[in-house]
């Protein structure tokens, strides 16, 4: 279809799964989908993929904004970058014109600065769209992000480090083409229908009025919000750090991705004080947690500042905040002392220290050199049992949704092909009741703190989310509509005879492909687990006493998905899905 699925197929067909993530041989694949660049709602997205330097498995990061549509307008479905430049360069694309340009003068610039520089330099006729890395990517911080116009970020799995390892500072693109649907008349009707649903949806209204951080206030009511490196259930300051507070005190305007009626992005500014920022992208829900509840900080201005620093340096806010929270717990337990931390007191709530750590991580200075490797690798180096405090699956730090509040999310994290993931499926939205998709076979309601029926829910939600992700459709828009609408969007754009059953079958194939790729890179059943900090019950909060029954859910899920006891999809399942070649590769890998 496109996106991460097509990138996985390209990788499988052309590259070795033993490729070292930061070597020139690891390809960096930027891939749009069939919906990207159409005027359908939520179709701005694209994926950036490679073998992940953070996890060692298949890495996928996705993003909205305007870059994906512009790439399509320039005439490209995707870009595959292999090798390494001898010196820093950036890639300039203007329709048919493609060139690598010396980047000596912009290497070292932060993401906001380099984006502004390149927009100015290449913006004579039309403002270009810019993908770029900051110092974090240049220094190959393993969770480095790629910025998209300095306002949207491909955060997860360290794609910025892969870009940095290629000495590639940026990709600049302008295009003059169009993306036209195959079935123009029906397309108009589908577009109008989906826009109406987005306007009607309270999920959309909530995202529009408060951004993704609106979930924080609601999440505290359901046990969704992780606190104090996932070991605390209550956080009195949470109300100060969510969507309503940001909207009331710091919002300057809303911002929308290309062709999106929701406009969930925030533009914020802290006018004065120690956490003063320029007007810029506001923190998402995940960031509000990563630099708020994860470390017991209730100062929203400091969170906005942390977000700005991560954006400028080009760091994934989730992994960065989670790694700092991990370090704080190590400090609390005496596994790290001021002798290890450059004299910094890594105490809970000490957000000023967190801000210093962001800079040290980006520059790989002092304690930052250790933490730049992410919590799992850092834990291995610290030793002394520090591994038990790293909250990650397959090396990817958990996003801010607690499996004790929502057991299905626990299963989703455990079996995910890229590690603990909140975006490449619909589990989060289904289990929390934001949408139901009953026409795709889901129950009408799921109880969060129950493990019953969750294997099937996760199975279906992956089959639903994978094709939408590969078509490059935003999950927030998807959550506002029905499965039939999603199928109709793909049908009218591609002209394929495409219904809900096709959507789910294609989803299963895409999921198996990416899971198989991660298996080829070494993942087995032993990696389909949850970290100790989330498998211990909490004493307080809305999820107190609740622990997901992972063993039961995983067993049921393996049966449904056709995965063997080693955690590998069975040959006959792969063959039935049209992935015989993958089955051969997996057999050969043993």
């Amino acid at each position, binding site marked *: 279809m496109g996106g991460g699925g097509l990138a996985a197929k390209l990788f499988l067909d052309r590259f070795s799964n033993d490729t070292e993530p930061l070597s020139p041989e690891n390809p960096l694949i930027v891939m749009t989908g069939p919906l990207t660049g159409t005027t359908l709602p939520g179709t701005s997205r694209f994926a950036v993929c490679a073998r992940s330097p953070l996890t060692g498995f298949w890495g996928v990061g996705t993003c909205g904004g305007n870059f994906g549509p512009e790439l399509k307008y320039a005439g490209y479905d995707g870009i595959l970058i292999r090798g390494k430049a001898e010196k820093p360069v950036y890639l300039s694309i203007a329709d048919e014109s493609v060139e690598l340009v010396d980047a000596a003068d912009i290497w070292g610039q932060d993401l906001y600065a380099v984006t502004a520089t390149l927009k100015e330099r290449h913006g004579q006729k039309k403002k270009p769209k810019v993908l770029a890395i900051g110092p974090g990517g240049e220094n190959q911080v393993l969770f480095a992000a790629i910025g998209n116009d300095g306002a949207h970020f491909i955060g997860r799995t360290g794609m910025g480090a892969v870009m940095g390892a290629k000495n590639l500072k940026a990709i600049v693109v302008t295009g003059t083409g169009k993306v036209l649907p195959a079935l123009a008349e029906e397309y108009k009707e589908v577009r109008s229908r989906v826009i109406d649903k987005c306007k009607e949806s*309270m999920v959309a209204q909530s995202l529009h009025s408060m951004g993704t951080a609106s979930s924080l206030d609601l999440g505290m009511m359901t046990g969704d919000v992780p606190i104090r490196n996932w070991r605390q259930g209550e956080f009195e300051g949470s109300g100060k750090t969510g*969507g309503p507070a940001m909207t009331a005190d710091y919002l300057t305007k809303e911002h929308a991705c290309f062709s999106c009626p929701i406009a969930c992005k925030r533009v914020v500014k802290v006018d004065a004080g120690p956490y003063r920022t320029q007007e810029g992208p506001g923190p998402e829900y995940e960031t509000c947690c990563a630099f708020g509840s994860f470390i017991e900080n209730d100062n929203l201005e400091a969170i906005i500042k942390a977000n700005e620093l991560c954006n400028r340096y080009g760091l994934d806010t989730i992994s960065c905040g989670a790694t700092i929270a991990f370090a704080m717990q190590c400090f609390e337990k005496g596994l790290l002392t001021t002798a290890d931390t450059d004299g910094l007191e890594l105490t809970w709530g000490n957000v000023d220290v967190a801000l210093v750590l962001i800079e040290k991580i980006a520059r790989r200075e002092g304690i930052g050199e250790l933490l730049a490797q992410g919590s799992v690798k850092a834990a291995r180096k610290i030793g002394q049992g520090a591994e038990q405090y790293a909250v990650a699956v397959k090396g990817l730090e958990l996003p801010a949704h607690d499996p004790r509040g929502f057991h299905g999310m626990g299963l989703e994290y455990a079996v995910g092909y890229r590690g603990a993931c909140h975006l490449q499926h619909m589990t989060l939205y289904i289990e929390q009741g934001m*949408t139901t998709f009953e026409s795709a076979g889901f129950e009408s*309601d799921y109880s969060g703190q129950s493990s019953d029926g969750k294997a099937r829910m996760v199975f279906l939600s992956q089959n639903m989310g994978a094709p939408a992700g590969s078509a490059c459709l935003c999950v927030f828009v998807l959550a506002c509509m029905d499965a039939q609408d999603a199928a109709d969007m793909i049908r009218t754009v591609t002209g394929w005879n495409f219904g809900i059953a096709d959507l789910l079958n294609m989803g299963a194939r895409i999921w198996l492909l990416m899971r198989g790729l991660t298996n080829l890179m070494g993942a087995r059943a032993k990696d389909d687990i949850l970290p100790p900090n989330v498998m211990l019950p909490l004493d307080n909060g809305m999820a107190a006493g609740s622990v997901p029954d992972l063993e039961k859910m995983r067993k049921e899920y393996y049966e449904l998905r056709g995965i063997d006891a080693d955690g590998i999809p069975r040959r006959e399942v792969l063959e039935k899905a049209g992935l015989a070649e993958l089955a051969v590769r997996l057999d050969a890998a043993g």
Partner: protein
Amino acid sequence: MAYTHGTPEWEAAYVQKTKERMESQPKPYIYFMPEWVGAWENFLKADPIYKSVALPDWQGAVVLHVQKNPDFGVDQDIYVYLDLHKNECRSIRIVPSEYGKKGAYVITGSIERWMAVGKKQLDVVKGMMQGKLKLKGNLPAIVRAIKPAVRLVEAAAEVGGSMPDEWSPAQIETVRKTIKELAAEFNID
């Protein structure tokens, strides 16, 4: 004689009617009838949990809008108006639609949906997210007040009551008649 909403006479007559019905009607009360609304009001006024979770700076009425369904004897929409101020429930009244629609926060749903909420089969927040209940009003304010909002609904469930799907044909006719009388006496159109 029909009382005019907003006048002291309307208020006094409504309170008197509620008192009489609370004394005369058998329990469990029928959901959304004046006696049930009165019991909910009394419950909330005395509820320490609501007082503890309600926002000290809260302003604005919350209105539950029950859509008509003649199959259950409800021949017109009903607006249940919760006058909430700071951390106090000052009153709950069935009010004319024109007034109810002006509430700061209006949550609209069919009788079946409200029944599901009362039976705890539908979480009110999920219901709004899924479009099964519609919310009109300032979203950031209501999200900030999600704890008290949930408590209001929990309290309604704790008060208990007779659900429409439990009503006999005779009770449905009684509901129809009661609503008609209320409408005539209190100008509840």
